[in-house]
């Protein structure tokens, strides 16, 4: 286990860059490259990107222009060799561990995706170091007892009403995962050239989990919630499936995305992938319209960083109003059709229908 004296040996910021569905660089990773750059500039250190993929070369340009990484290390196999096509913990964990032991970054950032969470937790276990999940901010601070240039990781606690500042003062590297959408994506620096280092994999381990049949593609229902400018969200107070359908109509008119609370999903009004909150999406749209949402912290955790929050609710005492910029205390059942009618004066639905599919 690294001791305090090792501190000078551990430097640089490493970002695990994930290739999403072997199609694109994961937006969460690009956001982290931007944050890593900020930290690295502050510490006068380097940003090291680590990635892997099938025909990985096609992704390197996009990686290098986000956050100006100094070096990109990558494992690549030419298709149809599938070794690096998908994340497989049995293959990637030993390789990333070896990389970290060799390059000794002080900080490792990963997007909190299915693969990122798995990899982060396993690597922290292998390196006997600390890991903080789902950080909403990372800053560099000094501390009288723990020393200089500590990575302070902000993690929301207890439904997001508190934030815990967490450090990993005596072990290396400091590791954290960050949910996609937490940081802004850096603007592309197309003139930047990173050093590219292709790594050669050692003989691969015999896999403990084997596939019995050819896998089939499983489409995770896509969500644009993280990128939406406007989110129209409904909770239990929406009252019925029929009224919830009106929310979808409103969203269609506003070019917004529809979201829901867990209770609304339990009621069968929306699908599971629409949940905002602790167990769903974390969003920060420019405008969040909360219809019939009481404002339980399990939900507000996922949306309280929104630009403007408008709460539409018949309960003037619901906690949602405390975090709302504007409150409309009314019966949604009558308010919503009215709003849609008024909006029709502003929105050219004929155009909209040609370009978007209207909900049924």
């Amino acid at each position, binding site marked *: 286990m690294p001791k305090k004296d090792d501190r000078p040996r551990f430097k640089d910021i490493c970002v695990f860059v994930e290739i999403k*569905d072997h199609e694109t660089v994961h937006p969460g990773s690009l956001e982290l490259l931007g944050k890593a750059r900020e930290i690295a500039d502050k510490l006068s250190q380097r940003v090291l990107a680590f990635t892997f993929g099938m025909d990985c070369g096609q992704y390197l340009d996009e990686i290098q222009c986000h956050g100006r990484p100094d070096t990109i290390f990558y494992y690549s196999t030419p298709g149809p060799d599938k070794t690096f096509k998908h994340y497989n913990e049995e293959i990637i964990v030993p390789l990333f561990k070896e990389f970290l032991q060799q390059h000794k970054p002080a900080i490792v950032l990963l997007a909190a995706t*299915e693969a990122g969470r*798995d990899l982060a*937790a*396993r690597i922290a276990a292998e390196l006997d170091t600390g890991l903080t999940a789902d950080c909403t901010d990372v800053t560099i601070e000094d501390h009288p007892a723990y020393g200089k240039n500590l990575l302070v990781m902000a993690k929301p606690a207890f439904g997001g009403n508190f934030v815990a500042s*967490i450090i990993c003062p005596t072990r290396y590297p400091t590791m954290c995962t960050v949910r996609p959408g937490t940081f802004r994506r850096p603007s592309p620096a197309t003139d930047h050239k990173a050093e590219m280092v292709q790594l050669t994999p050692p003989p691969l381990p015999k896999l403990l989990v084997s596939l019995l049949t050819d896998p089939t593609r499983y489409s995770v229902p896509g969500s644009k919630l993280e990128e939406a400018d406007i989110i129209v969200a409904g909770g239990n107070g929406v009252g019925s499936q029929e009224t919830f359908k009106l929310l979808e109509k409103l969203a269609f008119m506003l070019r917004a995305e529809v979201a829901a609370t867990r209770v609304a999903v339990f009621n069968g009004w929306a699908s599971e992938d629409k949940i905002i909150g602790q167990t769903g999406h974390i969003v920060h749209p420019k405008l969040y319209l909360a219809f019939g949402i009481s404002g339980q912290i399990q939900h507000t955790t996922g949306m309280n960083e929104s630009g403007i929050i408008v709460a539409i609710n018949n309960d003037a005492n619901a906690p949602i109003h405390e975090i709302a910029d504007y409150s409309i205390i009314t019966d949604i059942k009558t308010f919503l059709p009215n709003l849609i009618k008024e909006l029709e004066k502003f929105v050219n639905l004929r155009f909209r229908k040609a370009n978007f599919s209207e909900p049924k």
Partner: protein
Amino acid sequence: MVNIAVLVKQVPASQSVKMDKNGMLVREGDLIVNPDDLAALESALRIKEIYGGQITTVSMGPPQAKDALLEAKAMGADKGILISDPKLKGSDTWVTTKVLAACLKRFGPFDLIFAGVEAIDGNTAHVPYQVSQAMKIPLITQFHALKIEHNRLIANRIKGHESQQTQTALPVILTANKQTNRPRYYDLQRIKHAFDASVETIDLQQLGIDENDAGVKGSPTQVLKISQIVRKRENKRLEGTDKEMGNQLIELLTRNNLLKT
């Protein structure tokens, strides 16, 4: 006969927990079995119903976490082991993992270890991955069908964007959550039985773990401070009829350049 372990955590039912000034979690109010862990237990019970065997639930927590293990018994678990020691207070996920792994080794070997995907109090989801890594036992997540054949587990699972049928030699760790199943209700006889049941309690020394490797002292991560989040919001209540308030909302959209005509 399958020897099954299920990791169980007792958590506060609501998020209205308090922290003391040292940043330690002060558990108040109702305590429940972590919902994902009930799904894990349900999966274990279904395996036991088909193949026979014994289910041991393992929990790390303060003495009252015994209730979570008794509840697991009411649901159908055979045995409960509570790892409880004041020196564990403030342990982070990595310490928790090492303690659970030590306990699983001591009371095992287990063929299957089920765990919930994450706990609703910490929401880190670290422990199952880390137990898998620390014990060198493969982990299967997002499974939806399981069978055991010739000491191997056949699991249908979702991984990434693939639907896969996997085969793994036992032992295997599996994680479950609300998508996996609907945990059963407890029947009255079992609830009565659980009232008289006991769980085995062990401490760090019995597990052979040094106190310097546990609790705050042994945890790689440290909580520097806890702060309350204060957000400035307008908190303005709109007035008027539905039509008037609707138009104020439309005006707000226009003002912020959010209305695309």
